[in-house]
């Protein structure tokens, strides 16, 4: 799978917040085999003062996808993206423009505007969006080449609240990499997303807050592999009646 011009083989992107320690974070990254990690940037850590944590992340050899988590306005998101580019030396940015403090819903209007500004400025934007098709189109028009629809509100662990919307997105954007971002709680949620045909899953809390983050990281990657393989294998359609899997013809006549 290609994200912009980067080839990714493991279809999991891992967030780096809330782990019990940096050691458990790096072990989770190794166990998941993921190649991309997201890092949130606060203004205060941007000025080089988060160096201790960055150093640990850099040692993981993962590609860093900085994010604008917690930004509530276009200008805040754009400024944060620019600081992230300087700090991490990357054009990648996971763009979040939060519209509501409680649900952490994306402000899709601000998102499109910020995406337009950042794409014009040479960024490769990964927008955290809803599953709305028209917003998706606007984001592509703005220059995004990846879409990251939510599965459920950030950190809620509710799983996919609207699988039909994700299915519709897959059908509507057959050639755009789709990454389900946020809401995954369990491996089965990640597997379901992959079975729907999305290209990858981004998650954080589900692993970081698990009792055993390393074990959960490994389980997520296994689930994602299973879901992807299932999608490619063209699953059967469900039916509303039983169909015997053993042929009736040629049954032995007993007695």
């Amino acid at each position, binding site marked *: 799978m290609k994200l912009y011009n980067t080839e990714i083989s493991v279809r999991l992107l891992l967030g780096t917040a809330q782990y*019990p320690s940096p050691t458990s974070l*790096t072990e989770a990254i190794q166990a998941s085999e993921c190649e991309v990690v997201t890092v949130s940037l606060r203004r205060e850590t941007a000025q080089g003062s988060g160096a201790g944590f960055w150093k640990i992340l850099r040692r993981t050899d993962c590609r860093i996808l900085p994010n604008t988590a917690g930004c509530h306005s276009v200008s805040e998101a754009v400024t944060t993206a620019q600081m992230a580019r300087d700090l991490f030396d990357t054009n990648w940015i996971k763009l979040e423009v939060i519209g509501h403090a409680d649900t952490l819903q994306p402000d899709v209007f601000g998102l499109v505007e910020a995406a337009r500004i950042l794409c014009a400025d040479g960024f490769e934007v990964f927008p955290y969006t809803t599953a709305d098709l028209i917003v998706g189109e606007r984001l592509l028009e703005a220059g995004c080449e990846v879409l990251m629809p939510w599965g459920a509100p950030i950190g809620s662990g509710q799983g996919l609240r609207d699988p039909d919307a994700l299915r519709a997105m897959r059908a509507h954007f057959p050639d755009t990499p789709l990454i389900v971002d946020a809401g995954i709680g369990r491996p089965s949620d990640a597997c379901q997303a992959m079975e729907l045909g999305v290209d990858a899953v981004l998650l954080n809390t589900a692993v970081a807050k698990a009792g055993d983050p390393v074990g959960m990281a490994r389980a997520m990657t296994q689930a994602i592999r299973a879901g992807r393989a299932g999608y490619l294998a063209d699953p059967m359609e469900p039916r509303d009646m039983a169909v015997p899997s053993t042929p009736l013809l040629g049954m032995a006549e007993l007695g």
Partner: protein
Amino acid sequence: MITIAGAGLAGLASALELARRGASVRIFDPGDSPGSNSVARFAGGMLAPWCESECAGDEVLALGSVAADWWTQFTPVTRAGTLVLAPPRDRPELIRFARRTSGHAEVSATEIAKFEPALSTRFRHGLFFAQEAHLDPRRALRDLARAVQDLGVEICFGTKAPTDVDLDCTGIAAALPDLRAVRGEMAILHCPDISITRTLRLLHPRMPLYLVPRADGQFMIGATMIESASTRPPTVRSLTEMLSAAYTLHPGFAEASVIETGAGLRPAFPDNLPRIQREGGTIYLNGLYRHGFLLAPAMAARVATYLTGGTADEDIRERKTA
């Protein structure tokens, strides 16, 4: 003569354990009084190994179990337990917390009201950690310094340590590879109208809070955990979240005075556990992270045993991993 750099928590506790083992000790600290230069002055002062094991694991529980008795020798320790609460909406956090910890009992609205009448009718579910305790960090630092001096240890305030000290306890100022700063922000409220006698923890997915009662109607609230070495004063965002959480605990805190806010840098190694390690001729005790008052006694005993020629197996292991 054993020389120590740093009269903070680690330095004073180590000095005490060394003096008790018969060593003569001198401490150097650039500050002008006990703890004035130490991140421990911003601590909550909780001796809460069972709650901390939620994300810190069994080692913190094992090392921290001696802390309350140790501190009681020098300073008042309030052994009233910890009450962990969550608003009804965040009950899943409470269920998870209970699953991830031990040493607690589930408490109902009636029991919560009995423990803390001020919280009566506000919370329906909670966890009570009966064996936990708390102390006043600044008083504890002063009392410990006095106990250390009573044992004949010389504390040289306003004095930079020589470069070749035997024991370095300078926290985040120590230039150790892999040591990083985890910024914490806190506030002290004055609210004589509310009577709360034990440590409270409010579970919330985005703004967890602890509140520790201090003398004279004061409460310490904290603390953020930010991967940053910035020492600027607390941000509006952090204070807003902590103050809202205090208000969630009890609306009476709306009338509290904010009498102090502060930010400090916790020294931490990548596994967030403390280490004793040798660099050249100096032994370092560092990485107490958010567990200073809890883990300093056990770590100080280990480092003192090592420096006075005893060789506990674990100390040797730690030295080799350095």
